[in-house]
């Protein structure tokens, strides 16, 4: 099965990982998740956090989507589009790399 919609920018079988110099961590002092990069502190929204937690350099984009569907009982098409758009944005910023 493929989740690769016609508009998808990343290969569904590709395995994303955070680039070196990019770290996701929970910020206890402010009670939120943060994505840390060179001279940048990003505050991902709750959906983005759930995606990022699954970007571990082992799971494929497809597997991440499957996992999100299971965890949140959401519709596949919508999740696939969200994940693709979000990760493609980070790839463009050099914060995520996708191995195929």
């Amino acid at each position, binding site marked *: 099965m493929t989740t690769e919609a016609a508009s998808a920018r990343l290969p569904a079988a590709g395995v994303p990982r955070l680039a*070196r*110099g990019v770290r996701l961590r929970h910020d206890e*002092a402010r009670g939120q998740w*943060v994505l*840390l990069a060179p001279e940048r502190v990003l505050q991902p929204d709750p959906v983005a956090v759930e995606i990022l937690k699954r970007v571990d350099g082992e799971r494929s984009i497809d597997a991440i989507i499957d996992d999100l569907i299971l965890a949140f009982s959401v519709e596949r098409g919508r999740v696939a589009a969200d994940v693709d758009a979000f990760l493609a944005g980070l790839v463009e910023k050099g914060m995520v790399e996708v191995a195929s």
Partner: protein
Amino acid sequence: MNVVPRSEPIAAPVAVPLPVPYGMLAELTHRCPLMCPYCSNPVELDRRNAELDTESWLRVFGEAARLGVLQVHLSGGEPTARRDLEEMIRHCVKVGLYTNLITAGVGVTPERLQAISEAGVDHIQLSFQGATAEVTDHVSNFRGAHERKLAVAREVRRLGIPLTINSVVHRANIHQIPDFLELALSLGAKRIEIAHAQYYGWALRNRGALMPTREQVFEALDVVEEARERLKGVLTIDAVVPDYYAKYPKACMNGWGRQSLNVTPSGKVLPCHAAETIPNLDFWNVREHSLAEIWQASPAFNAFRGTDWMPELCRSCERKEKDWGGCRCQAMAIAGDAAATDPACHKSPLHGHLLALAEADAAAGVTDYDYRRFTTPDRAQ
């Protein structure tokens, strides 16, 4: 090195009574092989025998992480002059701090870089004083500096560490901005800082030899804007704006005591690296207080925190929580009063005076630098 106040917020403000700092600049030492005339270190440099020991720094990093600091910038002087740098990096990683090493890259061997990489550094920021050997070597007063920096940049990339090129621009290199961008691209950097010199300490002393003309500054801003668009997704360009020719002041440090703090080699904690140019501020030291106590209660941090300290001109301004009254050190340097409106603001009665100073310096054509140095020979070096 030159560490400069950010012109853009790195994150949204936090809705708590007292802000929690995001970043800490750790000036590990003032020792440095380079002699840049715009150095952000104070004119009175700390000696080696005044530096905090390893144990104290490790404690400070732990306190910073607990206070809520997310990113630590290991700087100097030249931070690799500290032989315990790797131990500090390992500790920062352990307590969860994102570690950014800010180096001049002179005297850093491939073996040292390997050790720094293995310690877990997240990012390296490497300064270039010019885009060519002639300019770098002249500005830093160190022959061969440029070649050594190139070698370090290549080694950093070979190790897979993200690289930022940091260039401070002024009259002698402002025409090289396109070359700086090319240099960054050719070295595989993903980010470059084009930081106009900020006139405090050494740079204020050398303002006559550093200040560009208004035309040069505006042309430089255009070059950066054009490049930013063209290189989107390839090279991130962060600019630190020149303010002598500006209409509005910079939001210095995004507000005093609001997002960041700075620890000097001898352990003093400052709201910004130039804060010691303001007389009669009481800075507390990590030798006597915890970082949290200093952040919350030290007189220096509370002196200009928020908006209550502001003169009427700033307090009634719609931009008061946008530029936070500009820069206190510049108000001190130009107006002689740290609580005055920053003269870079067009509403300041001294705005015309600031502009006249810049134009006079740019026109005078002074070329000799008063290079950064310890005022008497440092026997400890």
